[in-house]
């Protein structure tokens, strides 16, 4: 059964992708640093403290998360991932977006040619419902459909 969730558009765009779900805070630096540094083609998550994502490929996935945590290099790391074409298909936040993720999304939208829609405020129900492997469709109006 398809469920829809209304969020707020932080970085616009439309996309359809497979869900990858982190129930805990997503540590951007810890997740991306090794994959970016050593050219991991699948961009596997390197954060050993995140049991939901550790070692799972993030490239092209609909990354569903509550918020990002950790180092203030986070936005720069996200910007770099986007500039190199190593980003998730989209980032879908259950909570209001945090300052680091917002920085990364806005830097990418303004200073790269990448397309990574970012939606926030999707609510706790969104994160409870969506599971790894489900198909997620992001509309330009911030409506996210999960099936």
């Amino acid at each position, binding site marked *: 059964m398809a469920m829809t969730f209304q969020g707020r558009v*932080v970085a616009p765009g439309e996309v359809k992708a497979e869900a990858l779900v982190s129930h805990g*805070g997503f*540590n951007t*630096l*810890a997740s991306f*640093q*090794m994959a*970016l*540094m*050593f*050219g991991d083609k699948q961009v596997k998550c390197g954060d*050993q*403290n995140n049991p939901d994502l550790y070692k799972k490929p993030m490239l092209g996935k609909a990354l569903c998360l509550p*918020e*990002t*945590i*950790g*180092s*203030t*290099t*986070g*936005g*720069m790391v996200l*910007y*770099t991932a986007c*500039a*190199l074409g190593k980003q998730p298909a989209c980032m879908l936040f259950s909570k209001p*977006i*945090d*300052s*680091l993720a*917002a*920085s*990364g999304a*806005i*830097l990418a*939208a*303004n*200073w*790269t040619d990448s397309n990574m829609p970012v939606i926030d405020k999707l609510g706790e129900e969104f994160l409870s419902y969506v599971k790894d492997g489900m198909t997620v469709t992001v509309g330009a109006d911030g409506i996210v459909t999960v099936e």
Partner: protein
Amino acid sequence: MNLTKEQQSLLDGSKGETMAKVVKTLVMYGEAFDAERMVPVAEGFGHTVISFGIGVMTPVYDLYEKLLSAGAVSGQKFTADPRPLDKNVPSSLLKDIVFRVMYSQQERYEEQLRKFGLRGENDYTCACYLPQVGNVPKRGDILSWAESSAVVYANSVLGARCNRNSGIIELMGSIAGFVPEFGLLTDDGRKADYVVEVKTSQKPEAQLLGSAVGMKVLEKVPYIKGLDQWIGTELNESATAYLKDFGAATASNGSVGLYHIEALTPEAKDLGDSLIRPDAQVYVIDDAELERVKNSYPCIWKDMDATPKLCFMGCPHMSLGQLAEWTDRVAAALQENGHGKVVIPTVFTSAPAVIEEFKKTERYQKLMDCGVVLSYICPLMYMNNPLAKKMPVITSSNKLRTYTSARFYSDDEILKFITGGTN
């Protein structure tokens, strides 16, 4: 967002397309948080989290080249995070080759920093607020900083106002000279969402307590009660060093940008319980909770019984007082354990300016006699080397543990390891 005429003019391109894009980025950043206006950054110094010239980060340096070409330099001088390389830190031929490849952009990037307005050649440290470094904002100053441990310290201990800005955005704030007003820049954003009650039987280790708080409250503002009985009610060298390490752990294990310590930090001293929101949640931390948190840390060593080959202390960089205290502790433990020098290669890291001051004291030679390496390096940058990642490295830094394969031990455990005591 309501922009002043001057800000609107910049956005409209009066100083060129690149500057307009910088302002547009800051406007979008503010709009994501419903900011209504921009506020000027305080006179004084900025701080940037990006201090490393990693090959893969070329898009960042290309972007910076674009800014420099357009004359978009920082309106204020600034300090930067620690350098990633120091030949004094134990390494190997192979590791050195990997380091050279990894940090292939270092010279290019340091030249960019000079052009942007780096304060001085030795201004590379994550603890820029230490008195010897001298980037110490005043209470109420609006900052455009990044570096999670520095931001949380500036907000909490100094009472300055800074959001958890990302690298690049912080430089853009310094270039424009203003930042969007939201979050920790506002009175409301500085109110506490959590009350943390410390009920331990002894002084909790700063990095462990900070980790527990960070993992629980994530980005929320905690108001800590019961800690003043262990660290006092004065912001002296000992208390500020404790808060430096505590804050770094809250920021890296969670995303705390501000904490209040009852009867100690400036806003808690002035405003007390009125800082706490009526619906604040309560988190009690006792001995069992700290033990639970410590035991929850994953370790990705292949051989869990491996003998440590390197120890890093000083993430964030150690204060002058911490260097002195640890020198005495190591020397005394070595004597007690019948060793002349540390039995595991050990690196203490601190700011270049602090190291210079420490070298003027008698303890410097004492530390050298113990066989400890004193470096300005960023241990995290060292550990990014995949050959280092494979090594069994130990630390009492919860930040280093979070981002690398380094294994966390308490200060007492670390002391036993490096001085050949019984663990």
